[in-house]
């Protein structure tokens, strides 16, 4: 008997739906094995995680707090990935957005009427994120520089620049040495809607719908899809590749920049250490698990955020490492990637064919 993968006649819709669900289940089983090794009952642990993430209104709002930046950066990464532009730089774009928003909130107040400070911070923050994504995009289309390297390296530039600012020139003189800027004036705070969950949630939901519409229903989205699928065919059909990559990445950067704006104006209300806890990298997982679908990205972001919050809970309640949430998150990706094979292939068992009798070793001279 031999196992062969046979190409399907068409992409299986059932598989597209089932693969994420089954993968989630498999990842739960795999992590359960690990938990058992840690002498912890998996069922109780999962229950505690669920409890921690969704068990009460305050817990749920904390999950949303973490989900918002994941939604926004997830959307940014997803748009770039649709173009096969491997944007690993959402972290830096987010940080840059945060820096720019802090700049506006801290230093522009004397020149602007108070009601304009927050909108200006949002716009400038988005522009800064766009700029940070635009640099690698420009290098890619002009000089064919590998975007994986440039986007990744620019993350460090942005993060270290932020550090320089809150440790150095922008540091709060009354902060008792705490690495952070002074608190923003109150009119620059992003309104909260539930617990610490802020307006950013509304932005993310509206933008996800818009992204879905633009990617799936417009001429521009169609062009992005062709470029991502086959740039040579796109070129032959007269689609302007360089221009579309630039536009796509500016938008992607702006979305991640907005995530940064929301974090500093909605949560910490100052630029401080720990602006991002790796949202920009986790966004890659969000985009991938959502199969580059903006609507799915919203739900995946909530799920991943639940794993983060739930992980913190099991640490506090059961003494397990909080990284357990991250382990589950990592475990989630493997079966998913392996499973995507089944959308295009099916397994078939065939009988081994008779192998010709003469062995090659005998003939070797």
């Amino acid at each position, binding site marked *: 008997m031999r196992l062969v993968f046979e*190409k*399907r*006649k*068409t*992409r299986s819709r059932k598989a597209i739906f089932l693969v994420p669900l089954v993968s989630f289940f498999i990842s739960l089983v795999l992590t359960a094995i690990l938990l058992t090794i840690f002498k912890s009952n998996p069922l109780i642990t999962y229950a505690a995680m669920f409890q921690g993430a969704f068990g009460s209104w305050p817990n749920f709002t904390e999950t949303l707090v973490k989900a918002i930046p994941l939604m926004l950066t997830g959307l940014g990464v997803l748009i770039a990935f649709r173009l096969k532009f491997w944007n690993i730089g959402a972290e830096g774009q987010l940080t840059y957005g945060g820096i720019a928003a802090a700049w506006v909130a801290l230093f522009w107040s004397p020149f602007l009427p108070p009601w304009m400070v927050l909108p200006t911070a949002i716009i400038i923050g988005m522009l800064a994120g766009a700029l940070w994504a635009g640099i690698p995009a420009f290098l890619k289309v002009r000089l064919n520089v590998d975007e994986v390297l440039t986007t990744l390296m620019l993350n460090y530039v942005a993060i270290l620049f932020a550090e320089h600012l809150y440790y150095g020139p922008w540091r709060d003189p009354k902060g008792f040495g705490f690495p952070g800027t002074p608190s923003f004036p109150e009119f620059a705070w992003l309104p909260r809607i539930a617990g610490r969950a802020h307006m950013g949630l509304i932005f993310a939901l509206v933008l996800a719908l818009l992204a879905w519409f633009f990617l799936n*229903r*417009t*001429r*521009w*989205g*169609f062009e992005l*899809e*062709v470029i991502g*699928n*086959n740039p*040579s*065919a*796109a*070129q*032959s*059909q*007269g*689609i*302007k590749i360089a221009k579309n990559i630039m536009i796509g990445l500016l938008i992607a950067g702006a979305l991640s920049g907005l995530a940064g704006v929301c974090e500093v104006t909605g949560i910490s209300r100052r630029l401080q250490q720990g602006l991002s806890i790796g949202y920009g990298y986790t966004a890659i997982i969000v985009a991938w698990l959502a199969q580059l679908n903006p609507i799915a990205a919203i739900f995946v972001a909530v799920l991943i955020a639940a794993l983060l919050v739930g992980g913190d809970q099991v640490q506090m309640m059961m003494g397990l490492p909080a990284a357990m949430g991250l382990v589950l998150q990592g475990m989630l990706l493997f079966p998913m990637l392996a499973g995507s094979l089944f959308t295009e292939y099916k397994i078939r068992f065939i009988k081994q064919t008779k*192998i*010709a*009798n*003469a*062995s*090659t070793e*005998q*003939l*070797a*001279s």
Partner: protein
Amino acid sequence: MSSDSHPSAKRLTINAYSERGLLGFVGNQIRDMQPPILEMKGITKRFPNVVANDQVDLELHSGEVLALLGENGAGKSSLMNILAGLYRADEGEIFIRGKQADINSPRDAMRLGIGMVHQNFMLVGPMTVAENIILGMSDLSFIPDMGAVSNRIRELSERYSLKVDPESYIWHLSVGEQQRVEILKLIYRGAEILILDEPTAVLTPQESKDLNAVIHQMTSEGKSAIFITHKMDEVIAFSDWVRVLNKGRLVTVKKTRETNPQELARLMVGRDVLFRLEKKPRVPGNPVLELQNVQAIDDKGLPALRGISVHICSGEILGIAGVAGNGQEQLVEVLTGLRNTTGGKILIFGEETSNKTPLEIINCGVSCIPADRIARGIAGDMSVASNLAMKCYRKPPLVKKGVLHPSRILDLARRMIDMFRIDTPTPQTHAKFLSGGNIQKIILAREIDACRGLLIAAYPSRGLDVGATEFVRNQMIEQAEAGTAILLISEDLEELVTVADRIAVLFEGRFIGILPSDEADIERLGLMMAGVKQNNSDLNYAPSL
């Protein structure tokens, strides 16, 4: 070129025979007695929708050079890939030195002394020649003695005059040098049978001559070689025997000395016409496309088009014949805006379009069926409907203020699927799940539908079965009758003679001649493709080697 160069080319082969001593008569006697070093019997290889090899036999004796001649898609490469262990035959047997062999991998093939130089070299750019040569060898010590390896390479390269420095890096080397490395790699590993897949396609004439000398040095030591080609002059210059394949079948076996280019050309293309198409007399209208001394360079910076002038009128089909690599690719690219010209003028409907963008040229009413349909023609991970809409999505009614109208796209797709009889489960199926013929129909449907004046078709029936081929040809004729000007590039001379009104033969970036198709016969075209100028009825054979 004059006829003077003919004897010298011939002399190479004659010398090769005489070098092997008094082989002539005695050689034939020995040949019949000794078992062949390689024998392939009844090899059949099927791919989805196409039979690549159909009961093909092959025989090779020690010290011989065999030429496999055939058009693209005739099954030469797949036959050799079976021998080299890359494919497995569905039927048939292989005997090496009289013993049946089971070749499952390139490693098995190498163990049996069979090595192949592929058309695209399999070398690792950032590594040295010596490293590449020993790469993947099984009997290496953990830390190979590179000094000894280099010395051995020097010794071999001396003996076969394959000049290469073992310590230089692959990416420093020219294509010709890289090919020498490939050959050295095989000799180093003890190959007795060398397979060369279109070895001269990438070489300059001088390099080709050198390669010829190398092959003869090897055969004089008892090694043998098979080389794949579709160039007549190489068969004459290189080989002892020639086997001609056509559409997967073995057509004939000839001693090279006992045949001539004319005969081979005819055999390669296939003597009989398969189907006659209904070609009504068309009255050509106004010129649609005019080329005035167009020049262009290829990716390596070498001249690819050396001054092409021609015009096509509406309702006319101009066929372009020629062996691949004589400028066809670049011609299509300059016409569609993918490559800049270095001189001359391209006019479409009287408007200069040289060096305009692809979109501007599409807006002039130009459609193009690309030569490489998977690489340029479709987006495999998008639906059939999206692929069909890929040209007209810019215009209403499919789009309104930038917003697409999915149901109208679907309607359009359904109509095209019906009209062109595209066999797809649904319009939403991803294009890559379709067969080659149906993918070609998608492209054809899209390009013909969007065409407003000029259709450029590069090898539109390549790799298609008889039915699909006929369909494609009929579509082109219908389009011409409707007033479209068509530029048809093909290697299938029969296609050109039956479909085109005039045939231009492209050779080394120039038109060597333009004939009305009713004056063109396959033999005459075959000779022109090989670079033989036509002076009335005087057929001078001037090989380019």
